[in-house]
């Protein structure tokens, strides 16, 4: 029982972590906040469903195709909408509002394209339960966990080892100096929004089989991921993962042992408490002026 709970907590926690990581990336690269991450996850799930179920593509192809599309979507949003808005001299709050309206538009688009019903994602594996060391585990959970961990590790190496990742970090640290060194700062900013959306969309495809795919599936996950990112220290990639895992565990164990009705209430209460007591999060990021 406890092992299953831990696996479940790790799974949902790494989903939160990965989505939250996107918030951190966006914040580091542009000092902005996007509230559309959850809906990116939802769009990703729908795209994955379409590719896998209706176009009969292999799962891995569907996943990669979805991630590619989501990357372009994120890039377009940053390059077209956010940049225009910033050029007009809008304050950060207006960018947040812009992403809120983007999330509403995305939900509506999903509604028109795929309807309002909960859609079943066909199972990816033949067996519904596999037995590892005497424990019955759901393979889809393990897949989600695996994809999340792979993405995190890949992102870590991309950011630290590759040239583009390093230039992204440089641009985030000091845009002026970075552009003086020949780094194309607008492209790195666009890319970080793109990567954030890509991660959210990709994880959407793998959680589709677990939760089912529906229009508002992203809003709660998006908010929890955000909470995780804050607890970890907003803007810190690794903090977002730790924070996401923390919320995964809180949620799973609270609903298993205390109360399932109030699990989200408790999560948000913890978030508010953390913001009061320890606003810089676990990884001591600067949040106040």
């Amino acid at each position, binding site marked *: 029982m406890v092992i299953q709970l831990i696996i479940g907590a790790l799974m949902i926690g790494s989903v939160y972590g990965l989505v939250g990581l996107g918030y951190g990336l966006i*914040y580091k690269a542009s000092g902005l*906040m996007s*509230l559309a991450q959850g809906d990116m996850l939802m769009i990703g799930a729908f795209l994955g469903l379409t590719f896998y179920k209706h176009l009969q593509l292999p799962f891995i192809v569907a996943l990669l195709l979805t991630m590619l599309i989501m990357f372009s979507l994120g890039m377009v949003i940053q390059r077209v909408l956010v940049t*225009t*808005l910033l050029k*007009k*001299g*809008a*304050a*950060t*709050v*207006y960018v*947040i*509002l*812009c992403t*809120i*309206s*983007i999330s*509403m*538009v995305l*939900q*509506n688009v999903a*509604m028109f394209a795929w309807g*309002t019903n909960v859609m079943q994602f066909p199972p990816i594996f033949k067996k519904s339960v596999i037995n590892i060391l005497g424990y019955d585990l759901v393979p889809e959970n393990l897949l989600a966990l695996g994809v999340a961990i792979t993405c995190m590790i890949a992102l870590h190496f991309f950011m630290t080892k590759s040239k583009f990742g390093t230039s992204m970090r440089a641009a985030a640290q000091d845009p002026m100096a970075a552009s003086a060194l020949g780094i194309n700062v607008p492209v790195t900013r666009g890319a970080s929004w793109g990567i954030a959306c890509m991660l959210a969309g990709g994880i959407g495809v793998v959680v589709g089989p677990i939760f089912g795919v529906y229009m508002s599936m992203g*809003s709660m996950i998006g*908010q929890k991921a*955000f*909470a995780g990112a*804050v607890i970890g220290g*907003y803007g810190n990639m690794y903090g977002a993962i730790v924070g996401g895992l923390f919320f995964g565990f809180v949620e799973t164990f609270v609903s298993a042992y205390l109360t399932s*009705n*109030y699990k*989200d*209430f408790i999560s*948000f*209460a913890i*978030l*508010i408490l953390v*913001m*009061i007591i320890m*606003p810089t999060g676990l990884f001591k990021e600067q*949040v*106040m*002026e």
Partner: protein
Amino acid sequence: MLNKIKTNKVASIAILLVAAVVAVMLRERYLALILCFICINSIAVTGLDILFGYTGQVSFGHAGFYAIGAYTSTLLAKNFGLNPLFTIIIGMIVSMIFGIIVAFPAAKLVKHFLSLLTIAFGQMVFMFVSVTDKLTNGYSGILNIPDVSIFGYPIKSNQAYFFFLLIITGLVLLFKRNLINSRVGRAFIAIRENPHAANGIGINVRFYKIVAFAASAMLTGLAGALYAHLVGFISPDTFMATQSNLFMTMLLFGGIATFLGPVIGSAILVVVTELMQSLVSYQMLMYALFILAVLFYLPNGVVGIAKWAKEMLTTKRQGKSRVNTTEYHN
């Protein structure tokens, strides 16, 4: 002087036109209900305006205060049989107390984190009212909320309720104007423009932020309580995050930090929402497009357009071209 007389003329014509439209609308029950909704939303959005427009503190969780006002007043009126007029005031005060509680941590945070805190607050209230079955009857909501009665005379019809609301809306707008023109209001505006400079000239930034939250929560709570007694039925659906965004849309569309902006914004949005009743599924898309239109094309909302038109007229006469339409606050 001539200008002033002219503006007064324009204003009085506008008032007469509005009064005529209202008089026609009052002939029908349903149209009177729309007028009531416009008043209620105006009150709530005015509350948001004090916080966001004047003090520069964003809130995406005003549906929470709206819910607190509505549920407090409803529960007291239903379970204890108190006079709704009295419970509405208690709902307002309870909402204000919650505003102060939220403001304590919120006054320290900036931008993103403030947005998140307010979202979290709104979600917590929503979850609380949806899962606490014993108190709030959960998702099924509360039926048969008693009508407001003044000195034993119950206000039953929508038309009568509209006049009741009209008086309250007038008082709220008066309160807002006096607040903004007072020392407190000037402190709010100073904080919006530059918190550090405000601190430098001796304004207690934290204290005034808390005052702004309290005033804002109070008005939105009042609107929630009035809503509950108007419709006679409340359920958590009304208090979802969409409602907070709707308030924000109304405020931005009307024009932030203006006297009439909230009223105009809520009037337009309520009417458009009612006109699109048959296309309920497009509603959210429409709100989103409204927000985007405001963000990209009219940062000062409808009031901004009116001001721009007025400025165009006056500058044409004076031969100057000092027109600045795209100007963002804070």
